[in-house]
């Protein structure tokens, strides 16, 4: 084999990309060169051998599934932003953007250059830093105003001109110099004259006084950060939940990059209407038995749940008697009916105008309904993706559903399905972490028993014996507690829980 060119020709020959003339030349070379001939022969034979093995055909149902999903996608109305995104993604737009940036940068550069000795001519206003100390000499036509070095570093000498006090402006006659002597003052002083402050050189304490000036935004930020750090106390069911967190609500990194669970879930996960959720999950999943065994509340396993919510009278009031035939959870935590009524989380008053949110802004009921619909759509799409075994996409959609689920009407179904999607994608550590959070945050979730089983399998897969035994112990504790509560409850308890008074 002589050179690289000939090697490439061999490959071209094998795959029929060599023209006839070159083929003849190559075969002639092969006759003369046994090494080349052997190379041609064995590579050809390797290809033949490779082609003996047939790969399986894609299942027929797969193309049907793709076509079905294509229909769903096509039926979805195009988002308002889609045409804009397309426009921004267009190469011409990129080129135009580059031109604009270049021109802008050029302008900024030009303006920030130290001024060539600025001339005061005509009716140009006197510079702020220029204080007349003596009357102008007659006949002087113009005067140079050197820029102060201190000011240069900041905004250039020309900036001083912009802040000329009215008196100085008034003093300057057309065509006459303002003064024959100029006194240069630092920019800060000049700005003080002009009533402006240099925030860049002020101490933090000085700037701290500006909180009011900066306005509500700062206060809002601080309020939000406080809210983030403090445990959530859901005094207002909606306000606590109105705005989905910008962070992933599950608190997990995107599953693609890591197998380790990261930061914990924010504690203000709402404890929504489980009856609705359960019914939806049942009907959507069609698995019949996803959410079957109602368990009593275990306060030990729900340390983060605020007391007001742990009573969840609102949930009791809205529960489906089929899913909660024994009403066991009505007073499972020992709170009185009054406490439970007080604890009932407020709902979005749909159709009643505006509703306030945690951030202090207001959204309309219609918007809330839209967000809710978005959550449902995402959840439905997630189920389709899940059924089609596109688990990562399903995970993303369930996550979206969780984030858009303003009233937490779906909770904890999106979380549970996130865990299931990751489980089926064999991302067991992440899945386990989500399941643990669901168990922590939704102590009344009816599917706890199944979730425990899945969690155990997860830890078996991860081969984490310590976690496995911890989960088993916790599950046993919960079961014991549930039995104890059931034993303590009166036998002839009504099947339907008493609706909470409004």
């Amino acid at each position, binding site marked *: 084999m002589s050179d*690289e060119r000939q*090697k*490439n020709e*061999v*490959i*071209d020959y*094998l*795959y029929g*990309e060599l023209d006839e003339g070159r083929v003849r030349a190559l075969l002639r070379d092969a006759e003369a060169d046994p090494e080349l001939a052997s190379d041609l022969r*064995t*590579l050809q*034979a*390797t*290809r*033949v*051998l*490779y*082609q*003996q*093995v047939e*790969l*399986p*055909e*894609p*299942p027929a149902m*797969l*193309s049907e*599934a*793709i*076509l079905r*999903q*294509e*229909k769903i*996608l*096509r039926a979805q109305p195009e988002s308002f932003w*889609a045409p804009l995104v*397309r426009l921004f*993604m267009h190469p011409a737009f990129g080129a135009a953007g580059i031109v604009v940036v270049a021109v802008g940068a050029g302008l900024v550069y030009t303006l920030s250059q130290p001024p060539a000795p600025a001339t005061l001519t005509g009716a140009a206003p006197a510079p702020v830093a220029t204080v007349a100390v003596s009357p102008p000499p007659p006949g002087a036509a113009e005067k140079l105003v050197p820029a102060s070095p201190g000011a240069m570093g900041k905004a250039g000498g020309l900036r001083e001109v912009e802040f000329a006090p009215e008196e100085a402006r008034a003093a300057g006659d057309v065509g006459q110099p303002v003064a024959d002597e100029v006194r240069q003052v630092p920019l800060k002083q000049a700005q003080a004259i002009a009533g402006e402050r240099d925030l860049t050189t002020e101490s933090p304490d000085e700037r701290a006084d500006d909180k009011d000036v900066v306005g509500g935004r700062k206060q809002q930020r601080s309020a939000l950060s406080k809210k983030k750090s403090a445990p959530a106390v859901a005094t207002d069911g909606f306000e606590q939940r109105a705005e989905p967190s910008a962070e992933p609500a599950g608190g997990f990194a995107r*599953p*693609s*990059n*890591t*197998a380790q669970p990261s930061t914990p879930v924010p504690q203000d996960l709402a404890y929504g209407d489980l009856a609705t959720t359960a019914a939806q999950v049942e009907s959507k999943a069609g698995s019949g038995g996803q959410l079957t065994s109602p368990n009593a509340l275990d306060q030990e396993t729900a340390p983060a749940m605020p007391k007001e919510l742990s009573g969840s009278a609102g949930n009791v009031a809205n529960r489906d008697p089929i899913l909660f035939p024994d009403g066991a959870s009505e007073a499972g935590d020992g709170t009185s009916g009054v406490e439970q009524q007080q604890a009932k989380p407020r709902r979005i008053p749909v159709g009643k105008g505006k509703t306030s949110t945690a951030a202090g802004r207001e959204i309309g009921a219609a918007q809330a309904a839209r967000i809710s619909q978005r959550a449902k759509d995402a959840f439905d799409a997630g189920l389709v993706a899940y059924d*089609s*075994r*596109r*688990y*990562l*996409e399903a995970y993303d959609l369930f996550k979206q559903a969780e984030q858009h689920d303003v009233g937490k009407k779906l909770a904890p179904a999106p979380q549970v399905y996130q865990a299931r999607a990751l489980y089926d*994608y*064999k*991302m*067991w550590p992440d899945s386990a972490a989500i399941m643990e959070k669901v168990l922590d945050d939704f102590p009344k979730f009816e599917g706890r028993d199944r979730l425990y089983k899945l969690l155990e399998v997860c830890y078996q*897969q*991860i081969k984490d014996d310590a976690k496995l035994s911890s989960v088993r112990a916790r599950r046993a504790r919960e079961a014991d507690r549930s039995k104890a509560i059931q034993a303590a409850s009166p036998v002839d308890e009504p099947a339907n829980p008493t609706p909470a008074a409004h």
Partner: protein
Amino acid sequence: MPEVPDEVLMQRYQKGDAQAFEQLLRRHQRPIFHFARRFLGHDEAAQDALQEIFLRVVKNAPRYERRAKFTTWLYTIARNHCIDASRKARYRRTTSLHDPVGGEEGGRSLEETIEGREPEPDRTAHNRRLKRAIDEAIAALGDEQREVFILREHCGLAFKEIGEITGVPENTVKSRMRYALEKLREQLRAVGFEP
């Protein structure tokens, strides 16, 4: 009747013709599936990839421009997806069907313990051995060689087009192809298949 070019079908689909998409799917699903199967190593992942790739086609259809050859565009999507999926798969702890049961080297693989429906004549046994040898040889290739090899062998793309998809010069593509073939030859020889 001459076959309608892919690019025309794609344009029709952009205008809302669902039949055009169906035609494109029927035409390309097999090579795409084989590409994904070889790239990712097993059927299940390939099925997921096939769906995902065509859904990306649907989502990105408005952005397709006729200037680009459809297959180049499609296989660029497929390649990107498979690279992502294979990276993710490296983080996953899975038991491969090819792993020996009980961790014994040389023992039967999980795949082999699953009962087949048909009797196993010699020919089938030979094919199964060969299939396994080829699977292993392909898996042993570097990503760069493997993708070039699959794109050429299974998808029938020209070296120039493969170069456009992978973003390397045509000669580099050919070098990678040659390397892949040589490596495959060595691997097959090592397990008793003399090419």
